[in-house]
């Protein structure tokens, strides 16, 4: 019996694929484990993650838990001042903080597109780590899936956040009362315009940076001087206008704003003029709206001005009884107009 010819036969051991995501990274085998041990774990390192179980077991101080989830699909992945990772952490930290909770833990689910470079993933994960460190939260569990090239915009991140609400605190969009002051923590429109500029489709250049930031320490400072914070919300998609309309509807009140007290950076205003946008509808990722009892307004503003991300805080309006479920704006020339919710996508106009 002659020996079979084995010249030309080979054993197809997977190549290491050191520099980009391939479908194998999502299959739960060694490649996926490598992603965790080499990229996610060193960045997010904490006891729950190190335990390596299917879920995280966490110590939770007594009180109510606030939980929030958000998915992030922003394109491009990197833009001036921030990136999808930073946004994914700050966005969820902020949503939890807006309930008056102290954010403690985040989970992170990743959908990676085949072909995404590991360098990009590492950059994003580092950014998440930096944001988590600044916020003082831990990313305690996660998941990774990989989709075929063309079926994802590079990557999508979903984060869930958990926080503890101190006893006796109740902050909700349903609690705005007539007479309350409406406070805005700073100038609006930076994030939306910076992403639009980074996309490049409309051809303009600007230095505007995203304002993406974790606001939980600012919220804690505000809560330390006033037990009368009724509503907190960050004006993300749809901007200040949409957010205040939601609150007016939830609380069945009216809100009247002073145009001259709403700050817009000159560069943001210039882009809005050029394209026909209204800054009131543009997304912010590092600003908050607070509706608080009038008598506490000035001390809350004072503490905000001494706290990072609140330096430019201002009272921009007040809550009224009528007209209910309506947001009004007193213009700089002394007239009053209705501020409606955003109707669909904001598009550049020629009219």
């Amino acid at each position: 019996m002659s020996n079979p010819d084995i010249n030309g036969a080979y054993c197809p051991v997977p190549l290491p694929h050191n520099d980009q995501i391939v479908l194998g990274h999502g299959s739960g085998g060694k490649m996926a484990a490598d992603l965790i041990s080499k990229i996610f774990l060193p960045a997010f390192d904490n006891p729950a993650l190190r335990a390596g179980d299917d879920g995280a077991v966490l110590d939770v101080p007594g009180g109510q838990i606030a939980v929030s989830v958000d998915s992030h699909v922003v394109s491009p992945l990197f833009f001036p001042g921030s990136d999808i990772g930073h946004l994914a952490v700050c966005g969820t930290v902020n949503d939890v903080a807006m309930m008056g909770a102290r954010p403690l833990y985040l989970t992170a689910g990743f959908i990676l597109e085949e072909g995404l470079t590991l360098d990009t993933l590492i950059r994003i994960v580092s950014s998440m780590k930096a944001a988590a460190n600044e916020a003082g939260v831990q990313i305690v569990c996660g998941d990774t899936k990989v989709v075929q090239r063309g079926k994802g915009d590079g990557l999508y991140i979903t984060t869930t956040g958990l926080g503890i609400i101190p006893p006796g605190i109740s902050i909700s969009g349903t609690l705005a009362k007539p007479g309350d002051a409406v406070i805005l923590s700073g100038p609006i429109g930076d994030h939306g315009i910076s992403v639009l500029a980074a996309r490049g489709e409309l051809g303009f250049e600007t230095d505007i940076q995203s304002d993406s930031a974790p606001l939980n320490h600012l919220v804690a400072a505000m809560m330390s001087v006033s037990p009368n914070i009724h509503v907190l919300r960050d004006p993300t998609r749809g901007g200040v206008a949409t957010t205040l309309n939601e609150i007016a509807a939830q609380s069945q009140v009216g809100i009247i704003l002073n145009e001259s007290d709403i700050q817009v950076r000159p560069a943001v205003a210039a882009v809005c003029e050029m394209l026909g946008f209204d800054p009131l509808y543009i997304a912010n990722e590092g600003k908050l709206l607070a509706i608080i009892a009038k008598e506490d307004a000035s001390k809350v503003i004072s503490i905000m001005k001494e706290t990072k991300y609140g330096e430019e805080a201002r009272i921009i309006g007040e809550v009224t009884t009528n007209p209910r479920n309506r947001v009004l704006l007193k213009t700089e020339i002394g007239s009053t107009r209705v501020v409606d919710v955003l109707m669909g996508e904001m598009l550049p106009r020629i009219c």
Partner: protein
Amino acid sequence: MKYVTEFRDAHLVKGVIEEIKRTVTRSWVLMEICGGQTHSIVRHGLDQLLPTEIELVHGPGCPVCVTPLEQIDRAHAIASMPNVIFTSYGDMLRVPGSGMDLFSIRASGGDVRVVYSPLDAVRIAKENPTKQVVFFAIGFETTAPANVMAVIHAKMLGLQNFSILVSHVRVPPAIRIILGSSSNRVQGFLLAGHVCAVMGYHEYPALAEGFHVPMAITGFEPLDLANGILKIVRLLETGRTTEIDNSYSRAVTFEGNLPAQKIINQVFMECDRGWRGIGVIPASGWCLRPEYNNFNAEIRFDVTEIQPRESELCIAGQIMQGRKKPHDCIAFGKQCSPEHPLGATMVSSEGACAAYYKYDR
């Protein structure tokens, strides 16, 4: 001088409004015929500050609103075709045709792209030689110089895959129809400042003299609008009803922009044009000259069998001519809203109905 903040000065605006109040002795109906002016008036709440004697009416000045339904349906038909990249100004994406809008076509897989400038559409054509790139060239006279330059530039670059779908309208014929109607109530006209920046204002004296309706070329900032209104009110109160005032003199000259007019004449010719909600107004539009047929999307694509269906409830035409107000319409705010517009004036945020819905309900 930055040309913006100075013309929004609250103290000056209030001063001019007070002067209007001092000047006016009886009621007057004024019309503006520019979507941009409608937007600015409503956004700054200027009409609230005017004396009640002044009634401001919003004419058919929004090119998005007046684009005829057949043209919208043609745009949708082309955008739905395979291998087409359909480019458009942002305003047009939400406009519903007889069945759908460009958003839903995009969701179904059509390649629909918003561009800020028509030259961006030409660039897309250059970068995608295997695709047909079509640009939806709508507008009044203000936008014509840009739209025709796209054709000239595409021709210079030797592009074979670029064409435009034209729906251009002109202001003077619309004014003639409005003022010539037996039920016309308009006594004074604010003329669109940027239309006049391009075309000059030599077409308007004949209209003012023929109909005894004074006119003021007006800009867009609150101070410009107040100034234009003041000038017309002064002309009306002193019986100088055949005069024109250039209240936007920093941007407008009598002759207008001659290089732009020359190029417009080279590429476009006058033609009859349907205005949505009003009907066909003779010689009120611009179409591509025959020598530019190979850039004409209506010829390149087979979209002749279009049967548009307009809503029966919609009174947009009467609103645009100043004869009715949005609140007079039985469908306003009910069957007809910005999310489900039935007709021209609810379709774009500059349309009278949409502006009222958003700012003034």
